[in-house]
């Protein structure tokens, strides 16, 4: 049965609440990583299949990491993933480095995403957006 608008809002709100603590931990992780590597850390999407309609995410990224980086998600961060999938990308812009976290969930068959930038390209931040049919 399809979720009502309030039910979809409740899922997004629950994700937002979880992110408050998680994003702070990611910022700390990124600051430490940057200090050692002079670039930010990349985390591949935490779930191969996106969580649907508020169900718990199946976090199956394990120790898989980008080939150039070789450092996977720390277990302490993965344990905070709940009803969403999270991907962290890093970049080196003409004005300096940064990173972006993108949250993904599927609600009523549509892909919903929000993103948070930390760096030189704030245009990468956007609030919850219905990206159309999830494929």
């Amino acid at each position: 049965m399809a979720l009502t608008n309030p039910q979809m809002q409740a899922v997004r709100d629950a994700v937002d609440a979880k992110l408050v603590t998680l994003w702070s931990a990611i910022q700390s992780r990124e600051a430490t990583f940057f200090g050692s590597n002079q670039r930010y850390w990349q985390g591949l999407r935490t779930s191969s299949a996106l969580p649907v309609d508020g169900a718990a995410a199946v976090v199956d990224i394990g120790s898989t990491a980008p080939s150039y980086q070789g450092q996977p998600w720390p277990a302490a961060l993965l344990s905070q993933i709940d009803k969403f999938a999270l991907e962290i990308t890093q970049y080196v812009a003409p004005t300096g480095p940064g990173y972006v976290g993108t949250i993904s969930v599927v609600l009523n068959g549509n892909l919903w995403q929000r993103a948070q930038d930390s760096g030189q390209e704030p245009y990468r931040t956007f609030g919850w957006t219905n990206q159309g049919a999830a494929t």
Partner: protein
Amino acid sequence: MPAIVGPRRALLNADPLAGLRRGLVSSWRLQEASGVAVDSYGTNTLTNNNSVGTTAGPGSFQARSFVSASSQYLSVADNASLSMGTGVPFALAGWVKFTTTTGNPGIAGKWNGGTSQREYLVSLLSSAPRIIADVSTDGSSGNDKSVGATTFGNVTTGVWYFVYAQCDLTNVGVSLNAGPLDTTACTQAFDGTAAFELGAFAGAANFLNGALALWALWKRTLTAAERTQLFNGGNGVAL
């Protein structure tokens, strides 16, 4: 021996590539070993996302290498110089080599289907696999004018291809290795807000597993002779 002066002197100094720079918006030679991809002509230097690397390119050139599993691509935010819209013909050209041909990867363009910000895109249709050009007249998928390089045919891994795509306000066209254009009707490209990307589209999807070199964007179409000049017998030229 008398010094060469006047018209003969000017002729000797003529830049053989000057004509190709007419209407040029940006030129990304992609010769850097790492970091950003410098726009050697305009102001659209590309951000390096997730450590795009380097590899050997066509002819004697270098290229930037992309690993799809690492979500690597180059990008710059939307701005007026990269946007087309009503009454603006344009062309996009450069070199691509595939490590794998799966995943319908983006090669070059401004295209975000998820938010109906489709503008122009060169990508690989993996089911063939064949290079295709898409232009949306209004940002929607319903008005996505798509044409494949059917005259050239399918592509394979490990080979450099020179790709040319254009919209002349009548058709969108695509050709490989300076061959004939395949076309379909298209009157304009939507002026949207999608970022310009090399090696992906929609930001976080459809990543290229391969390499790119010598890409450029014009706000005009190129003649067949100019496309041949860019192809340069398979060696490419740097604008």
